[in-house]
């Protein structure tokens, strides 16, 4: 076991501490940095797995995510996303992939999980895109604390329990329209909805 670095509790600045650690893993396969990331993110990931009904596979999911982090860390670019966002997308993709494999029949999949949930962008290297991403991350963190509880509850169920808007409505016993309007209000406060569009 490697010793644990002292880590600030909250990610701030353009290059937060977790992103710095992830860069170290990518550049020099730094195992101490890797361990610090594990200490911080593994308990979150385990809850994520359990919340969406994969309790018996929770440890397996955490392991798969960390193996992926190791393999892909050299592709990580802190200017494009914070480590927490990057790790969230890996966790989401691994969860989807595990579920697909569990129910896979003999039929071969025409498209792989990453084909559907990994987004290559043609303008990914433009500075304005990077800046947008970093800004949006800070903004989300700061404005989420100002959202009313009922909006956070709905968003948590969608993200953590993989519930559709309809399922959230059924569970909370409120109309689907109410769920959707709570989400829309939250997204506009979080500035996810940047401008009027065809909805």
């Amino acid at each position, binding site marked *: *076991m490697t010793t644990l670095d002292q880590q600030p509790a909250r990610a701030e600045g353009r290059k937060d501490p977790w992103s710095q650690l992830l860069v170290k893993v*990518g550049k020099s396969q730094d195992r101490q940095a890797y361990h610090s990331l594990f200490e911080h993110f*593994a*308990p*979150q*990931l*385990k*809850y*994520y797995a359990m919340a969406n009904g994969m309790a018996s596979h*929770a440890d397996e999911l955490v*392991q798969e995510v*960390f*193996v992926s982090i*190791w*393999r892909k860390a*050299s592709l990580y670019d802190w200017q494009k*996303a914070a480590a*927490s*966002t990057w*790790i969230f*997308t890996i*966790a*989401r993709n691994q*969860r*989807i992939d595990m579920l697909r494999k569990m*129910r896979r*029949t003999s*039929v071969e999949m*025409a*498209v792989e999980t990453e*084909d*559907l*949930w990994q*987004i*290559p*962008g*043609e303008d990914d290297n433009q500075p304005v*895109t990077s800046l*947008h*991403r970093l800004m*949006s*991350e800070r903004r*989300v*963190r700061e404005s*989420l604390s100002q959202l009313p509880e009922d909006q956070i509850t709905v968003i948590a169920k*969608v*993200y*953590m329990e993989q519930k*559709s808007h309809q399922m959230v409505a059924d569970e909370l016993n409120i109309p689907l329209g109410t769920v*959707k309007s709570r*989400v*829309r209000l939250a*997204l506009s406060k*979080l500035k*996810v*909805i*940047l401008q009027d*569009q*065809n*909805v």
Partner: protein
Amino acid sequence: MTRHHPDSLSLMEYSAGNLSEPHALCIRLHLDKCSHCRHQVDTLDSLGAVMMEQQPKVSVSGAMFDDILARIDSSPELKPQATVQPKTSLLQKLLGEDINNLPWKRQLGDVSVLDITEKFPGQNEQVVLQKLVAGGKAPAHTHRGTETTIVLQGMFSDQKGVFNQWDFVVLNEQDEHKPIALGSDDCITLSVLSAPLKLTGTFTRLLNPFIR
């Protein structure tokens, strides 16, 4: 530049990883060409990360980290990846080289279809490619359940407007439309038809509930 986008709620379900494979495919194909929606998904992914951070934590055993290191050390294929593998496009992977030379089935007049549902085993939706010959007209029709469509080639118009390549359209029972293919290319779309009925068996291969 696309002008018709998926709504933010669908992008959120995509970011959360809640969409079926065919619906994720439609969103993914659109995102490929639409930086506007890509920015929204970036922000939504950050929302996912912050939500995860603010939820309770569940402790993991220290032995797990050693297991992970052991796995990394013992498998040569788990060495860090140096570069991104060049990829064929998602559509090519799904449909082959030329979208115009598929085994289309002529349906009515100017319309041909190709059902590709079998490429998505275990999903409760029908996935269909439709082709309207350049300048052709489709007969007026309505939809059962919800139909999510993305334009893969060419463009079409109906009473709601003009839909260009990579535009995104969601139609339901209330929408009757009469599309016309514009421009010099055949208009090819990919549509996902949601089953109007919820079935109880989880992984049962479904009988096709649609008669087209």
